[in-house]
């Protein structure tokens, strides 16, 4: 059976959920071979094996952390040469897309970014994308070389599928470009204790209607009652009420949770671009004409300062 390379997104050995989703998709077209790089690379093997990786290629050279992007491209290229896979799947993070693109160019392959689904097809993997702020769904394929595809979070279910997951050292020779861009400092993002925005099953967002940084406590309280991540519109981020890392939309994160709750958000096209593929959409907005109501499964026309605390209280009561 053909092998499929899966690039592993991990933090010091802790594998992030989108990578496990990729393993589910990879198993549809072949046998997943994972590539894990940097500090803690070998620690990823157990969980990857549990989810279907037949092999885990690892290299923990310091270059992956010390220089931007290119060392990882060199490693993936080495893995591609060693394995001759049927496809290469990479999580669709900002960095993942850059790595995938450079790899594709080097190995003479086409690239498709931001897939939301992937199936096997007669002429190679058939890739589904959601484009123009989710107003269109397209089916595409790579017509030259080994298909390189980046896949958005929440595009497939995480499934247990125990496999060998044998760890093998990947031998990488770094290119002349590898040390071109030095990382001279790194400030890790502080954890809020809430789920990761792109990975969360539920996202509760606030917009300009929240009207102040302190008021975001109302949004956070609702999020915590549901075990949800917190998102924000660009208007709220630009006003300095919430960090940019939480922005949902075209220039923020793209989310596709089971449930999205928009509070005080009008639903501009650039915001919709980042949340329109959510399964269930709910909005609270005092303007009945707000475009967000065109998307909702359930909407409340009202003041969020009344509705949201009542909702939070009711949820907490029901939870007992």
């Amino acid at each position: 059976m053909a092998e499929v390379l899966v690039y592993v997104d991990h933090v010091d050995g802790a594998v992030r959920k989108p990578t496990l989703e990729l393993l589910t998709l990879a198993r549809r077209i072949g046998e997943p071979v994972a590539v894990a790089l940097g500090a803690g690379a070998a620690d990823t093997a157990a969980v990857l094996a549990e989810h279907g990786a037949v092999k885990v290629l690892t290299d923990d050279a310091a270059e992956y952390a010390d220089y931007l992007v290119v060392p990882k491209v060199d490693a993936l290229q080495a893995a591609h040469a060693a394995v001759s896979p049927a496809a290469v799947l990479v999580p669709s993070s900002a960095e993942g897309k850059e790595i995938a693109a450079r790899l594709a160019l080097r190995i003479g392959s086409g690239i498709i970014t931001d897939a939301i689904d992937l199936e096997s097809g007669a002429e190679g993997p058939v890739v589904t994308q959601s484009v123009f702020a989710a107003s269109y769904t397209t089916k595409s394929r790579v017509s030259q070389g080994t298909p390189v595809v980046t896949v958005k979070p929440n595009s497939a279910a995480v499934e247990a599928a125990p496999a060998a997951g044998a760890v093998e050292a990947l031998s990488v020779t770094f290119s002349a470009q590898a040390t071109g861009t030095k990382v001279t400092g790194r400030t890790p993002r502080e954890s809020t204790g809430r789920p990761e925005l792109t990975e969360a099953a539920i996202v509760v967002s606030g917009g300009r209607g929240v009207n102040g940084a302190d008021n975001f406590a109302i949004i956070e309280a609702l999020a915590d009652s549901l075990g949800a991540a917190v998102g924000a519109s660009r208007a709220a981020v630009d006003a300095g009420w919430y960090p940019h890392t939480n922005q949902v939309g075209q220039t923020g994160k793209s989310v596709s949770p089971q449930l999205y709750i928009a509070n005080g958000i009008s639903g501009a096209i650039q915001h919709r671009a980042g949340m329109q593929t959510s399964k269930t959409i709910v909005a609270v907005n005092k303007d009945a004409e707000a475009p967000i109501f065109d998307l909702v499964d359930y909407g409340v026309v009202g003041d969020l300062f009344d509705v949201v605390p009542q909702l939070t209280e009711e949820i907490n009561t029901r939870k007992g």
Partner: protein
Amino acid sequence: MSLRIVVTVKYVPDATGDRHFADDLTVDRDDVDGLLSELDEYAVEQALQISENSDDDVEVTVLTVGPEDAKDALRKALSMGADKAIHVEDDDLHGTDVIGTSLVLAKAIEKAGYDLVISGMASTDGTAGVVPALLAERLGVPQVTLLSEVSVEDGKVTGRRDGDAASEQLEAALPAVVSVTDQSGEARYPSFKGIMAAKKKPVQAWDLSDLEIDADEVGLGGSWTAVDAADERPARTAGTIVKDEGEGGKQLAEFLAGQKFV
């Protein structure tokens, strides 16, 4: 010392318009007004700021690959303050994918001459966000991308990249390819004087033969990917909308409980 900056700018269909696909499954550019991608305005802005903060002799060239109308995007960038423009236009470019676009841009950048390339974080239509990385790969120079802060000094570019897990401080020697995010600082509006001045600024036109690119390397035929279907997403079925008359929060909780979220 002189510093040659090339800013790559894309002409895109207005995101607030009704965007569609044409029969050949390429982006329909006829029905919707086009404009300079808002995300590339940030790239123009940073180029102008680098120019203004530099003691060197800085020249800012804006470059687009696109149809006839893409001139509008160049005019806008020139009226913001860029010095000159290059328009790569050729009928054979229709349907080019990101790999092909990066080839054309890279060849044009090399022909123009450069010390620094500045791109936007992503195009607002394609939204791939990969062209800057591809340019760095093709040009064989450092990639210093997705910066929310950038500065150029002593032949070096430094900047801050706010990633998923961490915020990173980056440094590379010129020549280099930079891309900037919409967090890098609001783009200026063209002034009346700027708009008038732009009319006299040179716009160079190149086609594929000027760049020694064969027609079969680009366009739909030269594309390494193929779109087989594009279906308009069915409108979401109309949801339930209630007006809050004191019980809105409770009603919403009831809905969420019914959907098993609570």
